[in-house]
Each structure stands twice: as C-alpha cells, then as structure tokens.
C-alpha cells in the first residue's frame, strides 16, 4: 500500500493527463480570484494589465504544461 501499488493500473499516458488536469485546475482557481485581490497593494489609478498577477500565473502554467506535453 505504501508503494502506491494500488495505482499500478494507471498508465504513464493517463498519469500525464492527471498532471495536465492539475495545471488546468490551478489555472481555473487562479481565474476565480477577484481582480481587486490580485492587484492589492497597487493604487486603483495605477493598475495596468501587466500588473495583473492572474496573467502572470497563467503564462507560467502554460509554459509548464507545454514542457510536460513535450516530454
């Protein structure tokens, strides 16, 4: 049990899909964050799209997913 042998029926391809599912889930959760929360610390009049940390996070997740797609 401690060796996760109960998951031995899952193939490498399916396991990879689980990782992609995780990235998708994280991306969806990030998108659900309120905009005011991700900009907190920057005055309302100084907020620009490039300060939007949701975009930063999604970009990082996209690169991560493409690395796992490649390998």
């Amino acid at each position, binding site marked *: 049990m*401690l*060796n*996760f*042998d109960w*998951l*031995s029926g*899952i193939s*490498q391809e399916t*396991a*990879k899909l*689980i*990782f992609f599912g*995780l*990235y998708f889930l*994280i991306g969806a959760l*990030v998108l659900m*964050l*309120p905009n*005011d*929360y*991700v*900009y*907190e*610390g*920057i005055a309302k009049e100084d907020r620009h799209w490039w*300060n939007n*940390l949701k975009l*930063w*996070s999604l*970009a*990082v*997740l996209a*690169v*991560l997913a493409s*690395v*796992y797609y490649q*390998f």
Partner: protein
Amino acid sequence: MLSGIDYFIVIAYIVGMLLLGLYFKKFVSSSEDYFLGGKSLPFWAIGMSIVVSDIGALDFVGVSGQAYRYGIAVGNFDWVGSVPAMLLAAFIFIPYFWRGGMYTIPEYLGRRYNKSVRTIASATWILFFALDLGVLFWASAVLLNVLMGWPIWISILSTAGVVGLYTYFGGITAVIMTDVVQMIIMFIGGFALVFLSLDAVGGWENMVEKIGAMGPEYQSHFDIIRPIDTKSPFPWTGILFGLTFVMANAYMIGNQSIVQRCLTAKNEWHAKASMIFGSALKMFIPILVLFPGLMAVVVHPNLADGDQALPMMIKTILPPGLVGLMFAAFFAGLMSSVDSLLNSTATLFTKDIYEPFIKKNADDQHYLKVGQITTLVLLGLGVATAPMSSDFPGIYVAIQTFMSYFQGPLFAILLLGIFWKRSTQWGGLSALVIGIGFAIFLNVFKAGFFTIEDPFLYISWWSFLLAFIINVVVSLMTKKHTKAELDGLVFSSKILTQTSSINKTL
C-alpha cells in the same frame, strides 16, 4: 587549476560581491531593516533571490549527476515541484504572513497554535541551518582549494569573511541584492555551458537520437513521467503525492529562508509577484543544471560516478574565461546559500528564541544587535564545524534526509492551521511530534516498506497524511480556539473580497 583570465574573473567577482554587500550597510538602522529589509524591496529582486538561494553549487553537481543517471525526470523538482506550490504560496499564504507583519513561519505557528509548536519548529530549523552552514563552508573551501590552489583553511576563512561581512552589516537587503547579481552570473555561466555543450553533441535532435541508441537503460531518459514500478527514485506517484502535494508546498510555504524574502516586499502586490516571478525563473533551472548532465551521456559515456558529469563537461567544453565565469557561478550558488542561512537563522533565533524566552520588551536596537551577534556566532560555528564534512562525507545527504522528515508534518499543520479553524493547539503539537517520529520510523525501516531505491518522496507523503489525520482527530477531542484567538490567522473568503478593510484590522 584556472588560467590567468579565469583567476581574475573569480577574484573580481568575490571583491565585487563584498563591496556591493557592504554598500547596503547604510540602509540598516533597525531590526526591521536587518531582518525584513525595512519592507521596501521590489518583486524582481526577491524573486531572483528566491531562485538563487534555492539552487546551490552542490545542486548543480548533484542534479547534473542524477540527470546523467535517470534522465529528464529529475526536472520534475523545478517544474511541477515548484510552480504549483509557489502559486499557492503567492495567493494564499504569503498575503497572510505579510499582512500579519510576521518575521518568521514559527511566529505564525505560535500565534495559530501555541508557544511549544513555535519553539519546536524554530529550534528544528535553527539546528538544520547551523549544520548546513559547516557543510557549505567546506564545499566552497574544496572548490577554492582545487581550482585556485588556496589552502583549505584560507579558503574557509575567505568565504566566511566575505559572506559574513556583508551579511553582518547589510542584513537581508545585502543578502537579496547580492543574490540578484549572483543569479545573473549563474544564468550567464549556465547558459554558456548549455549552448556550447549542445553544439558539441550536434544539436538537440542528434543528442536524443544518440542517447536513445545507447541501450535499453536509456530508453526512458526523455520521459518526464515514470511508471510506478520504476527503480529510479521518481515514480509519478512519488512526484505527484510526495513532491507536488507535500514537499514542494512545505518548502515554498514553510521554509524560513524562502518566505522571509517575500516578507521584505514593499507592499502586498510585490510580495505576491515575487513568488510568481520566481516560479517563472525556476522553470529555467533544469535547463542550466539538468541539460549538461544529459549531454554528458553523449560526450562522456560510461562515467563511473554521475556526479562527475558536470565537472567533466566544464573541463572539456568551456574555453578560458568562461571556465572562470562558471566557477564564479558555482561560487555564487554557495555564497547565496550561506548568506541565506546566516540571516534566516539569526532571524529565527532573535524572534523565536531570544525575544520570547531570554529578553522580552527590550528596545529595537537591542534586537538589532542580537541579530548581528547571532550572525557572527553562526559564522564561527560554521567555520568550526566545516571539517566535519571531511570526516563524515555523507553528512550533507544525512542533513537533507533528516530535513525531509520535518517537511510533511510541518506542511500538515500549516495547511490545517490556515484552512481549518477547528484545528487546535494540541492537534498541531501532537501532529508535529508524531508526524516527525513516524517519518523517522519509516526511514529507519524503509527496506521493509518500500520497493524503490530512495523512498523520500513516499515518506514525506505518508508522514504528512498521518500528521494531518492526527491533527484532525486530536483537534476534535480538544477545546476549540475562540474567534478572537483566530482573528487574522485562518483563511476566510473576506480576504479575497474585502482586501483593504481586512488590511486595517490585521
């Protein structure tokens, strides 16, 4: 030994770091300046500092060696083993720590649970960090001894002198700003090696083809996901459960030297952005440390020890000048690890041990002095214990292994502490103690429980799970905390929707 130009580059680098670090002395006039950089630092500096502190010279050699033996699966540690955890830290944990005005992770645990949890967590970190210092001093001395020809003791004292001086005077600001330069040097040196190595193996496609043709044991060298029955330490279940769910989060959320950097940010946006920017930079780390190991499979097949992969590539691929730069990059990794340990340990001792137990309510200058003196004492301790690494060659691995016992239980109490208001002080304390004990038990009897080579990922998962369950069960049986005791310490949707007003109440 280095050539003249390499020698010049290394000396210029060491002197430059000393002068740069000492420049930041003028910004230190209070304990907040010393431990938290006066809460004035920008995200890009903090993000770069997180990355360079995380990757040391020992990792450069070790990861290349593992890539030589096991292939690209080693990259999981910097890809899935960092990015999700850093996003969770950025959006959930760091805002709480930052808004609460905290200096240390154990300080949060003390407020959320009790003083005993705070003291156990802090004392454990202090012990590990102090032991690590001696190992790092020895590693840097060996590097200087081999390449520059300096005697071991001169090498140890010169490393301690340079890093100690700027950390003593400049505090965390000097640590972070020197880290910025160190990261740039590390990236330049690392990428130079990768591009020249790629050229030497005839390009990426050629390398993949050659490695694939080397025999059945190399067939899965480019598979990032490994099956459960792999003999390598990286089955996908270990990567998902042990690394992604536990160790990565414990490291990015519970490690004082990482989190303390984010707490130096000038505002909450910079604190969050520093983690996300750091996660973007982390994605490049496998290219720097893993790819040379892969290319060494083609250039130097049949190496008896995989850890020789990187030194051999440097020796055969890099021209004079770039060898010096690569050595400076190695040294940068070591220096950034040492300065982080010095400053974080001084912060833990001053805030979690000295202030609550030895002298309460002293003036701020007193705590500043204590932090500086602690830095000096640690420096002396590190120098004195450095030769232990020569007598006990496995000590670095032993320290890292012992550290991993702590990660699962620590993350369990942090997670429940912030997300479950019913979690009590006795739940947290028993989970920490029993969880660490269980991890040690599993490691001692690992041959009877596990089938893979080194089951540290599995051990971290199971010790996390047991600590989690213990925390829940004991908490349900003990008296819950009052609403006032939990104010500002437990996650609430209010933090997402009423940001500015919450800020005022914390």
